[in-house]
């Protein structure tokens, strides 16, 4: 019993803090989504209009669907690019692997905004890519080939996520018992076969975790589209941000945020159900 009261004293403050500043705001937002979308006295009333509008206006669904596709593409490509990186570090780099892993993490700890902004310099009409292509004679006139497009958003976010996706894959590859690979070889597996039948399946938890690491924040992304996406590259997160910053229709924005929240929770549920990496905070 003594232990229980000690635990209560210890867990109380962080639990209370998260309840008040994390769970409660989400609850208030849920209530707010039923408010009338105007400022003033009328806003005290409750209505289902926001939901009706959300379900009837197909442009919201299209944008949500498109953002989902963009996020899936980004996460899938990031996994494909990060996997060989992690594989190299674990199976080839040997003693230096932690140092080399840290090396690719270092750039991610520099200003997020400016790393994205730097891509504007690379993709812009007088940027690095254009100068290079001009110099090579591939193109004759400079143009912002990739800037202000969905492709720019995809490229930039893949750049952002590859190192983060590599981390969980690295961790799951490290956990593989090398004896299993030896056994596979002894039993006549060729290296590729051993990879496909032993290494890859055992590293799937890391792959899925990495995929989710990239997918969820990308779904809500609004900064990168603002900086490099232009009109065509805008995402669902921009729509939410717009409702709060420019349109000032907070109840409508709340409906949109809730829709995204539910989508994300569903994804997490599926991901936990997949039976892999069942705990986010693993000790």
């Amino acid at each position, binding site marked *: 019993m003594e232990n229980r009261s000690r*635990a209560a004293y210890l867990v109380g403050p*962080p639990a209370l803090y998260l309840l008040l500043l994390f769970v409660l705001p989400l609850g208030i937002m849920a209530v707010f989504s039923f408010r009338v979308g105007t400022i003033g006295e009328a806003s005290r009333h409750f209505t289902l209009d926001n939901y009706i509008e959300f379900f009837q206006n197909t442009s919201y669904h299209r944008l949500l669907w498109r953002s989902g596709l963009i996020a899936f593409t980004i996460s899938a490509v990031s996994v494909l690019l990060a996997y060989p990186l992690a594989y190299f570090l674990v199976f080839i780099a040997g003693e230096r692997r932690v140092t080399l892993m840290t090396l690719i993490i270092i750039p991610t700890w520099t200003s997020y*905004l400016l790393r994205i902004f730097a891509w504007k310099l690379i993709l812009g009409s007088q940027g690095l890519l254009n*100068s290079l292509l001009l110099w090579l004679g591939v193109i004759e006139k400079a143009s912002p080939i990739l800037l202000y497009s969905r492709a720019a958003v995809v490229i930039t976010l893949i750049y952002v996520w590859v190192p983060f996706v590599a981390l969980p894959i690295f961790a799951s590859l490290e956990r593989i018992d090398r004896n299993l690979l030896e056994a596979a070889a002894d039993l006549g597996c060729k290296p590729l076969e051993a990879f496909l039948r032993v290494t890859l399946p055992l590293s799937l938890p890391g792959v899925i975790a990495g995929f989710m690491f990239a997918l969820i924040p990308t779904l809500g992304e609004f900064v990168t589209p603002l900086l490099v996406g232009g009109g065509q590259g805008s995402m669902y997160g921009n729509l939410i941000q717009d409702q709060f910053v420019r349109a000032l229709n907070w109840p409508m924005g709340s409906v949109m945020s809730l829709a995204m*929240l539910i989508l994300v929770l569903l994804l997490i549920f599926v991901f936990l159900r997949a039976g892999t990496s069942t705990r*986010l*905070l693993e000790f």
Partner: protein
Amino acid sequence: MGRLRLPSPFTLYYWLVAAILFLPIILLIIFSFNSSIQLVFPLKGFTLKWYQQLFKSTELLEAVRTSILLGFGSSLVATILGAMGAIAMVRFDFPGKSLFVSMAAMPLVIPYVILGVSLLIMFHQVGLPLSAFSAGLAHVVVSVPYALLVIGSRLVGFPQNLEEAAMDLGCTYWEALLRVTLPISFPALVAAFLICFTISFDEFAIASFLVGTQPTLPVYLYSQLRFPTRLPLVVSMASILMTASMIAIVLSEWLRRLGETPHRRAKP
């Protein structure tokens, strides 16, 4: 033996990716020494004037100050809350434990834009004015999971009977925590603090909704990205900060490892 060994394609791939990861950062640093206002190629000439002007831009320095204070405050609170939560999670079984763990992990997987707008609504409803302080309250929420992870994995690494030994020798439980657990997990506490600090210092999405008229550095940076003439200044500031944050990270990694090695394989 004497044969020239070609590096494996994986090695080449690693260094290619590493080069691409560093490219944008190197580009920014190069531009911070470029004398032209426009950030385009070809470069004009070498200059240090942006760095000199930096110290005269009061708005920029004010934003840096805000970010440092906010980062310091939110990381301190997050580290304390994270330490309490981690001790409870690692050392005790209590009702609702798994509920607490899921709640504490959730901020990791919810898009920041949702956290930002939900807090915006709540602060507006309760009449809390928007400021760096309100952004700091939010930063604690997103930092706590990281603090829990870092401190928790340190606590798992050393045996509980050290606390029991202290209590056998006459300490109360809280004294044992203060005089045994805290000093032993000190490297992890510092590492957690530094990680939380870098998260808060670089966080834009949430802060953009909550800072009101007290811009943090990322919020200020964003507002300046629209004005081409202000860019070189911003880029040179960023170069200094990038260097500083790299040092902070390398330091925290070093501390974390320092703390982890001795009882790495001890059973929890």
